[in-house]
């Protein structure tokens, strides 16, 4: 019920954008800026790159307004663009700079945000180490499994919607997620 109402509202906003209503584009941007950016950040694990990709997502949405047809849920379309861009970036960068950045940020990461938080240094370090382990465990997943986990966990998408985003069957998504979580269960078994 709620999902269908959301579908109508977002699609209606996009149709208004198609009719030249710039304010509706602003509303969609407000609504999905954070979720798209955070999804991309968790996918590529680089703040600068993720923001550039998020900008590209919204730019593509804007450029596609003329041909937009509400055939699927708006978020399915939006995350399909985001996933496509992220997978392409990962594919292009995987053998070169991505691995270097990952290694570098693994070494530098824990100390990066310590000064920004109010908690004690010890608590902060424990937190950072935990997050770093999670980040590395997610980064080690195959790209499609990673995308499926992020959409399932953080975007709370249904299996059918993830299947549409990844252009595969619902049963394939179930199997993809089960395998991905199985890997994470092993890698993060020591975490309380």
């Amino acid at each position, binding site marked *: 019920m709620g999902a269908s109402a959301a579908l109508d509202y977002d699609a209606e906003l996009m149709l208004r954008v198609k009719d030249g209503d710039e304010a509706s584009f602003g509303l969609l941007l407000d609504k999905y800026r954070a979720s798209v950016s955070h999804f991309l*950040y968790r996918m590529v694990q680089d703040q600068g790159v993720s923001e550039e990709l998020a900008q590209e997502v919204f730019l593509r949405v804007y450029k596609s307004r003329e041909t937009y047809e509400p055939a699927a849920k708006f978020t399915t379309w939006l995350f399909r663009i985001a996933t496509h861009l992220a997978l392409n970036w990962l594919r292009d960068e995987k053998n070169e700079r991505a691995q270097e950045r990952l290694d570098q940020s693994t070494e530098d990461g824990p100390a990066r945000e310590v000064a920004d938080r109010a908690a004690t240094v010890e608590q902060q370090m424990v937190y950072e180490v935990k997050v770093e382990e999670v980040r590395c465990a997610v980064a080690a997943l195959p790209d499609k499994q990673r995308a499926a986990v992020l959409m399932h966990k953080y975007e709370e998408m249904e299996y059918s919607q993830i299947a549409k985003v990844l252009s595969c069957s619902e049963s394939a998504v179930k199997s993809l997620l089960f395998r991905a979580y199985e890997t994470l269960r092993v890698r993060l078994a020591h975490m*309380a």
Partner: protein
Amino acid sequence: MNCPIKSQENTDWLLEYSAGRLDSEHAALMARHLETCPECARIVHAQQRVWNALSQWEPEPVSADFDRRLYRKIDAQPASWIDRLFRPLRPFWRPVVPLAAACLLIVAGVVLHTPRASLNPADSQVRVENTSAEQVERTLDDMQMLRELAVTPAPEESTSKSM
């Protein structure tokens, strides 16, 4: 219920149950199964740990100038002159289009159902046939006249020859 692990059916229930997203009916079934299945109970426990660990991973906030940079890119996009010309009118197009389509249909209906003499193909064919017969007859007369003129010598020519 069948054990999701042994039967490899409904393995997604384990994930959804661990995440607290399974509906109450299925959650009750799963809870009863977990009491008797240590393997599934172990997976659910480990999955809940993973779920909690993932929840701790908060991304950095989006930059404050995100929108400004995006709109700058949008403004830098080349727009066609047609797009620029008609953009202010776009909000008004949508209500006008069905009205225009209805008017067009009415006009087409009126045009198609109005009887017209000139549109009768049989009449026009007869007229064409009549016209072409007259033209042929007149042409033949003209040719006959020209032939006669060519055969009869001019009076001046005959006079000069005799002299």
